[in-house]
Structures are given as C-alpha cells and as structure tokens.
C-alpha cells in the first residue's frame, strides 16, 4: 500500500546533496498517476457529508432528520444526539489527554460553519442532498464577530509572550525621532489545492485512514486516543499531499466523524470536506492587530521598540498568532518591550499557516521601520543596515549564522536599489505610479529528532524508508540525495518510501523542521548501513574482500572496491549475492543515546515533546531573507501590480537548490496574495465567512506574479542541522507583505496599514 517513488534517470545534475535534481514524483503528479487520499479505491465505500452550523453562537435545540433519513441511499445520520464513544486526545505538546469524552458534533455552537451533523449514504450525491434536507433549530446567543467587534474587548494577556529588556518606554520618550502606528492583518486561509478529507476503514480493531497528512505518526496517535486504540492499530497513509501549509498536521473533527461512522456501519467511509466547509473545518491564520512605536536618534540609531499585539482566537481554545515573533530578532535595539493578547471571538480556532507569527509580525516591524526611515529622511536600506543586529538581543546569544546583511546588500545590488529616488510619488510611467520597498523576513531553526531505515536489496537497489511526508517540498528527492552521498550509490539506484505511519518515526512537516531533521536521520542511517556493509564484506565467508587484508573498503558509484582500487570491485548486487544476503536493513534515529526507550520514541514521533527551539543551546539560529519589491499602481484605479521582485535568502546549505527556490517562490507568491488579495470576509450579523470559495477568496493567478529572482547568500550552518541547512519552507512568505506595502507607499504616498491593499484603499 505504501507508495514508492522510483527514481528514473534523466536529470543531468549530480545526485549528491546540493544537486539540482527535479522532483522524483513530479512526473507522477503532472500525469495524474499520483494517488491522493480520496482517490484510493476502497471496496464497499460509503460517503459522508457534513452539515455545518449557520449561526455564530448558541445551542442546537433539535435536529430534524426525518426527511434526510427517508432519502434513498441514506444509511446513517449523526447528530449531537449520538454519543460516538470518543475520548479526548492529548495535544501536540504531548500533554496527557484529559479524561473526558470528545464530541466532534457538539451541541454547543461556537462559530458559524461548525460541524453539527453528518449524513452517510451510498453515494456522495445522496448524502449531500439528504444533508441539505436536515433542519436544525437553534437557541441563539450573543456572539463576537471578530477582533474589531466592540464586544471583543481586550482579550487575555499571554504572559509567556511578554518580552522585554532595557527600559523601552523611557528610551522611546527620550528619542529624537519617534513613530507610532497600528497595523492589521485579516483572517487568511490555506486554500490548499487539495481540500481536506479522508477514507476510513476498519478491519476488526485495525483502523486504516487515507488522509493527507503533514505528520503521519502524530495524527495516528490522536486518532488512537480518540478511539481508545493502541497506537499500532492505527495506520495513516499519505504518500502525496496536495498542499498543506500548516493545515494538515492534526486530525480534525470531521476525521473523527468519518472514522466513527465507519465503525458504526462496518463499512469504509469517505468524507470529502467541501470547499466552503474547508473555510471553517479548521482555522486559517488569525486576524491580528499590532501597535508599534519606534524611537531613534537623529542619525537613525534605533533606541526603543514598543510593541503591543492582539490576535483573535476561538471562544473554546487559545491560539496565539504571535505578532511579536519577528520583532525582537531583526534589529539591534537596547530597549525593547512587547506584549501579546489573544481575543476570543466566534470563529473556529485559528491555526498555523505558513510562517505563523513571524509573518504578521514582520508586516508590523518592517512597515514601521520604513515609516521611521521616512520620518528620518533616510534610505530604508541604510536604516536597516545601520541597525544590524550583531547578536540576538532577546536571548543574548550569538547567532549561529546570520547573513541578513549579505541578503540586504546582494539583494539591493541585484534589484538596482541605488537608482531609487527617495520621495514618494517620484517614479511614474503615464498613469502608473512606481514604487520600491523592502521587507525582511526571518524564521527560526526548529530542530527535532527523526528515524530512518535503509534497506539494501539483493538486486543492488537501495530503499530509504521513512514515515515522513512529502507535500511537494521535495522530501522524496532530498532523501535519495542524502543516501546517495553517504552510501556512494547513484540516486537512480535509490527508491524512497514515505507517507505511512507504519514506517519509521519522523518530525512533523511543519515549522520548517522536517528537511533538517530527516536528512540528519537518513544520513546517520546511511553511514551506518555503509559501515555495516563494509564490515560484512571484510568478514563474511564468500566475500572476495575477506582475504585482501584491507581494513576498509570504498563505496562509490554503486561499486564496492579496495581503497586503492587494486583488487576486486563488485556492484552492490554482486556483493549481496556474494554475501548470500537478501536484504541488509539498518534503522537508526537521532535521539540522544540516553533517550532510546520505547516511551522516548513514542513521544518523539507522535508529539512535539522533543522539539527544540532556536535558542536551545549556545546559539540563536534562524533563517533570514530580504525582499525587494517593485509595484506599479494605477493612480486612478488604485490597482496594484507587483512588477518585479528580488529576494535574497540565508537558509544555510541548500540540499537541492531547485526545490529550495521553488519553496521560496511559493512563499513569495503566497505573500503577494496576502499583501494584495487575501481576506476572509465575515458577515457581522452571523459570523459567516461569505467568501468561502476560491471564486471569491482571491489568491494570485499566474498573471499576478512577475519574474521572481531568488538568491542564496547562506553558508552551511552545522549547528542548525546535520547537513548544514536551515529551514526554507516558511521564511519565503515572511517579509513579502511589508515589502509590497512599503513599495505601495513609495509609489503613492499612501500608507496602507491594513491588509490586503485592495483598490478602494488607494483611490
């Protein structure tokens, strides 16, 4: 059942780490041969359709299912009346589950679009039509629409996010030049091309789930806890994912509903979350608001940053979109104060969306820096370089590597920044105003252990086996490259198996931590496999190397030979035959030696308990970037088009530059959407997201995106990861929105402090 992506030869670049190989699975995807979760043929499958609330807050008083139940093909209707027998699951952090029941179809309505019932029928159409015939009576209660709702209040202080050093208020008051401004970002959504959904199948007490997953092991654990199963009874299969962006890291209420229905019916259940339902079945990026005050000397030396942020959360769980996440690490500043509050409103609990925290945070600080530059009459690039942080002022630790200066200077050179004229509205082409802006971005290096298995087969092929996932970012490919380099076997001889919770444990594909973690595990395992193979070749009867007297062997280009190549030389297949072996299987992990118990491993692969933040250890470790944007604004229409972007990145060593560049560009494209188009629009009267479809929730099209020049200025950072890379997946979006907002200001003289920058804000 596990998908194996075979490597076909045909890419000219070498297969080593750092080679520009094309994605192994790219061909399968563009030809439609890659099977996504909902496409698995499952015999006897029946279809579930969700019914969601149409009010923001209240109670389900009654659900009339009589018409629905009478429809042809309907097998089961689930409502809040049904006790599905589920237990609460533990959270990501690995906190033990609360000893309480879990109701994925709750009676208590806490947001508009909450799942409150489900219909299961023989066909999807039957289920959908029956779902439409369900009538729900509610007892409505007062609700809070969003962060700006007067009823929302000041929310709750997140003490753990209060950061301060020096005396920021006093330093601000004493500064020659100060600016203060408030910035807002709206609700934004993942809108992955592949909507959520799953197929659930029970065989006795064994549960198999086909569901797109950024974390097969973690999701398996949560399903196991919901259904009171041993972990090994749950299997998540997810070889291909049509985009996740943070939304596919944990099971969601609809998953519990589908699995419970499959259990009740004794048949496999497929549940496809409709596109509109995707807007409320899990949270997007929370709306935020932040006030920033900066103080500087006349010559532009930053004296103080005072930051007060707010983000919305749901009324039933705390989630902080940390508006202060990037603020303290970007610049040298001796006096700093930041607080963040979360404000409960009637929404689904927000979640992680590419660059959580860092993203809105950088929109705030990078807009504010540009405002300060104008208050000082200083070039924004010069201001940034002048206040370059020589170390991490928050933790007091040295950077592991930080090439943000190079990103700024090399990016500026490639962009032609020196030709800029400082005054707003000073560059135009007919009715079009042209503007340039900078936005810096950062994303922490998050480290986590992983496990891997290498199998050398009798036919000489090598399998790299891991339960980690590939949602398009290139895991298949870079793991083959890693194994190829460590084993001395060409990539076309390597197959990679991923996306199955039965396979060796792995960090989550989130927080930009997977590549660094899993390449480390594969590298370690491949080195061990190589040692093992050489050991056997030197010692086993039947091996032609046994009597050569050599104490080591060389493995290169898939052949085993003596170090000076003056004796036998065997292909892997020949050696395996000589050794009389069918397979050689090696499994290793990157947990420390004193944390190798079964419980350590369970916690490592299914919770975040072993994850290490950027300042755990001697250094402060982050990826960095600087974006340079050119916009063209139609002065009559207020329409903004990004006409050029240059972005320079420090992400350490790049395991595969081709794939890294596409991660960066993908992030930048999402950033363009965030700057100019994306906004969940909520009807204040009932909390409904009214643009809950891709016709109305606008993301950039091809013609909205100019050529995106990306530049790597990084150097290997061996503190950050075994192979020297830092995270690449999220940093690309961070800083794009302020670069564009700053360019819009430069073009028009209008500072838009609430995203997205739509035309009516400029005309």
């Amino acid at each position: 059942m596990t998908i194996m992506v075979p490597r076909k030869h045909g890419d000219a670049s070498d297969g080593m780490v750092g080679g520009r190989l094309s994605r192994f699975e790219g061909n399968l995807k563009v030809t439609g041969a890659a099977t996504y979760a909902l496409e698995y043929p499952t015999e006897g499958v029946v279809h579930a359709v969700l019914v969601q609330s149409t009010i923001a807050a209240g109670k389900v008083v009654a659900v009339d299912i009589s018409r629905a139940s009478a429809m042809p093909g309907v097998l089961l209707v689930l409502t809040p009346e049904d006790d599905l027998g589920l237990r609460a699951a533990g959270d990501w952090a690995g906190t033990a589950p609360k000893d309480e029941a879990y109701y994925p179809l709750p009676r208590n309505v806490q947001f508009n679009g909450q799942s409150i019932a489900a219909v299961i029928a023989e066909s999807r159409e039957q289920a959908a039509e029956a779902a439409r015939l369900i009538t729900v009576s509610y007892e409505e209660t007062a609700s809070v629409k969003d962060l700006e709702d007067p009823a929302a209040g000041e929310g709750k202080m997140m003490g753990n996010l209060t950061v301060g050093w020096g005396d920021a208020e006093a330093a601000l008051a004493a500064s020659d030049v100060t600016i203060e401004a408030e910035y807002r970002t709206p609700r934004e959504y993942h809108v992955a091309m592949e909507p959520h959904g799953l197929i659930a199948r029970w065989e006795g007490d064994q549960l198999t789930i086909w569901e797109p997953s950024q974390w097969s092991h973690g999701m398996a654990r949560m399903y196991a806890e919901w259904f009171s199963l041993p972990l090994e009874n749950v299997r998540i299969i997810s070889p291909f994912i049509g985009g996740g962006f943070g939304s596919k890291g944990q099971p969601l209420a609809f998953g519990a509903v589908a699995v419970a229905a499959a259990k009740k019916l004794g048949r496999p259940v497929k549940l496809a979350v409709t596109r509109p339902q995707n807007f409320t079945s899990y949270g997007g990026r929370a709306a935020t608001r932040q006030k920033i005050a900066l103080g500087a000397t006349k010559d532009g030396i930053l004296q103080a940053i005072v930051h007060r942020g707010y983000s919305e959360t749901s009324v039933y769980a705390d989630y902080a979109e940390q508006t202060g996440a990037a603020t303290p690490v970007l610049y040298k500043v001796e006096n700093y104060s930041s607080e963040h509050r979360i404000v409960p409103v009637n929404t689904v609990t927000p979640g992680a969306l590419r660059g959580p925290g860092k993203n809105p945070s950088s929109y705030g600080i990078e807009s504010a820096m540009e405002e300060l530059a104008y208050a000082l009459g200083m070039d924004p690039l010069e201001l940034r370089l002048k206040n370059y942080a020589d170390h991490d002022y928050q933790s007091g630790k040295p950077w592991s590597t930080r090439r943000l200066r190079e990103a700024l200077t090399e990016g500026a050179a490639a962009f032609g920044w020196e030709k800029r004229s400082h005054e707003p509205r000073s560059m135009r082409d007919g009715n079009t105003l042209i503007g340039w802006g900078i936005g810096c971005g950062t994303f922490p290096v998050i480290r986590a252990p992983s496990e891997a298995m290498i199998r050398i087969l009798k036919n000489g092929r090598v399998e790299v086996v891991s339960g980690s996932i590939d949602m398009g970012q290139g895991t298949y490919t870079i793991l083959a490259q890693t194994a190829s380099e460590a084993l001395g076997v060409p990539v076309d001889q390597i197959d990679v198996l991923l996306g199955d919770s039965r396979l060796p444990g792995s960090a989550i594909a989130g927080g930009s931590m997977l590549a660094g973690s899993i390449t480390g595990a594969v590298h370690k395992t491949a080195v061990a496999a190589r040692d093992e193979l050489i050991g056997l070749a030197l010692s086993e009867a039947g091996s032609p190397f046994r009597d050569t007297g050599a104490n080591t062997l060389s493995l290169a280009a898939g052949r085993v030979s003596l170090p000076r190549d003056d004796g036998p030389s065997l292909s892997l297949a020949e050696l395996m035959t000589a050794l009389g072996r069918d397979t050689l299987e090696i499994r290793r992990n990157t947990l420390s030696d004193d944390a190798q118990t079964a419980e350590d491993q369970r916690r490592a692969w299914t919770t975040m308990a072993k994850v290490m933040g950027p300042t755990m250890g001697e250094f402060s470790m982050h990826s960095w970037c600087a974006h340079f944007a050119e916009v063209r604004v139609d002065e009559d229409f207020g329409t903004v088009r990004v006409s050029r972007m240059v972005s320079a990145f420090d992400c350490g060593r790049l395991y595969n530059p081709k794939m890294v560049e596409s991660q960066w560009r993908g992030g930048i494209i999402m950033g363009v959407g965030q700057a100019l188009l994306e906004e969940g629009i909520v009807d204040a009267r009932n909390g409904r997201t009214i643009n809950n479809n891709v016709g109305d929730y606008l993301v950039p099209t091809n013609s909205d995106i100019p050529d995106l020049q990306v530049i790597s200025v990084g150097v290997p950072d061996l503190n950050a990861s075994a192979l020297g890379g830092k995270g690449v997946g999220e940093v690309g979006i961070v800083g794009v929105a302020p670069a564009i907002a700053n360019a819009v200001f430069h073009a028009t003289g209008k500072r838009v402090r609430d995203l997205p920058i739509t035309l009516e804000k400029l005309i």
Partner: protein
Amino acid sequence: MKDFSYVRATSAEAASQAALQAGAAILAGGTTLLDLAKCGVAAPETVIDITHLPGLSDIIVSADAATIGALARMSEVADHPSIKAAFPAVSESLSLAASAQLRNMATIGGNLLQRTRCPYFRDPGTFPACNKRAPGSGCSALGGVTRNHAVLGTSEHCLATNPGDLAVALVAFDATVSFAGKTVLVEDFYRLPGDTPDKETVLGRGEIITGIAIPASAAAKNSIYLKVRDRQSYEFAAASAAVGFELEADGKTVKDIRVALGGVATKPWRARAVEQALIGKTLSAGTVEKASRLAMEGAVAQGDNAYKIELAPRVVVRAIQQLALKTAMKTGGLA
C-alpha cells in the same frame, strides 16, 4: 446536489417543450448551472442538454452584422478574427472574462443568463432571505457586506450586480438577442430588479436563446473593453466599460459614441448621458472627465460599494483615452 434526469435534446422545439416542465433546466456549457446546483440554488429535476442541437454554434460576420449562435463557446467568439477586427470590445469582453477553462466550456447563450455573484444569493442554507431566489423573502445583502453590489439600477428589494462582461459590450453596440421567434435589444432583454428581482430577463419559460446579432458600425469597429479589478485575471469587474466611437471627417469631433458599464449595475448599463454629452464635442481631457461623471447619475451607495461611484467614471475616462490614443495611432495623427 439532487439527482436529476438528463435529456439530450434533438431539436430546439423538443428542447423548448421539455423545458416547459416543472423543474426542467436547460444545460449549455453548464458552468453556471452546475455551480448553482452545488450551491443549492438550482435543483433541477431534469436537465435538458442543448449542446448537440445543430446550427446554433455558427459565427457569421458580414458587412452588416455579426450573428453568433447561442452555442458558440466564449473562447471561439473571443478568438474569431472577424469579431476581433469588427467588434474588438466584444472579443475583449470575452477574453477578459472568467478563466481559459471556463471560456472553453461556456456558451454565449449561457453567458447572457449567468446569475449574480451576490454571496447571499449563493448561500441559501445560511441566508434564507433573498428576493431574487425566494420572492418576498427579503434581501440579506441589506445590512451585510456589499463591496461587490450594484450602485446603479438597484431597488429596495435587490442590489445584486449583473456580473457579465459580454452583455456590457453587446448593450453598447445595440446588439439583439433572439429567442422563441422574437428578437429584442439586449438592453431590453434585461430587466431592472424593481420589486421582482427574480425576473431578470424577458425570456419566458421554456424559451431558448438561439443567438445574438451585433450590427456593424464604425463605433463597434473602433472599440475597447476595459475591466478593472484587484486581481489581474479571473475576477469579476469592480467596474468595467465598453466604449466605441466614430469621429467626424475632421478626425476630432465625435460623431457617434457608445458607453456601457459593467460591475456597477443590476443590468448591463448603457450610459447614454455620457454619450449625449460627448457627441459633437472633441475628446479633450476636461470634456471627457466631466461627461464621464454623468455615468453615475442616480447612483446609490450601499455601504462598502461606495468606491464604485468614484471608480466607474474613471474607468470610462481611461477607456475613452486609451481608445483615442489607439485611434490616433491608427490614423496617424493625435486627436
């Protein structure tokens, strides 16, 4: 979506006959119909597929007129060399609409009958009140989010924008639409919402659009469609304008000018006041700007859509300017 039966019509008469039954719906490209069925707005019992009817897909351009069959695809009309040459605004209105995939599926007849994008109209499960969908039930847009709603031709019962692009160009150039043996001006084909916003056109039950005709004119030949929106492509208009004009022999004075607006009105909107103000005048910046403001006579803002009143006249100005520039380049002198 409700199960429905599918009938492939063999003749226009049979299709008409079948379409008279309760719960019947005509299927052309299906890009509106299926979309609305998924939203729960349309729930046909029977779908009558007319795409196999012969003789309804022709595009014929003569010296007098273009006649276009109701089943011609948007993309075919947009790319037709003679349409491009004699009716550039019509071609542009189509190629700036929707996406390539939709344009390849969608038909001209279906295009004229596309429904509003009013989010309240499209979400019956959450917003039962919608006079267009359920006459007399009220209007959920009032007091709601109205960024994309109309400012012209609205009534207290409905302010839904007619979202189409093609119809704007057709109205500008006095095109007609034929159905059930009748031929009416496209402008008269659409109705204002008044107190019956559910009745969008004069098409009767079971009547099938057979085609459209656009009379040739110097103004149609010298025309432009300008569409303004936040996203560069694949978005409905925040405001759009179809403009065409013919100059006197002096190469300066306006002999004939057509202006129609999209994205701002409850039906494709001919801006006759703007036309009247410009006929006999030269297209100087001041004159054009002043005249364009007349496009918004009678406009009523409803909350978030106020920007359209500012935007639409600017779109008209720009369309006229761009066309004037194009004309000047063609005739070799600047007007």
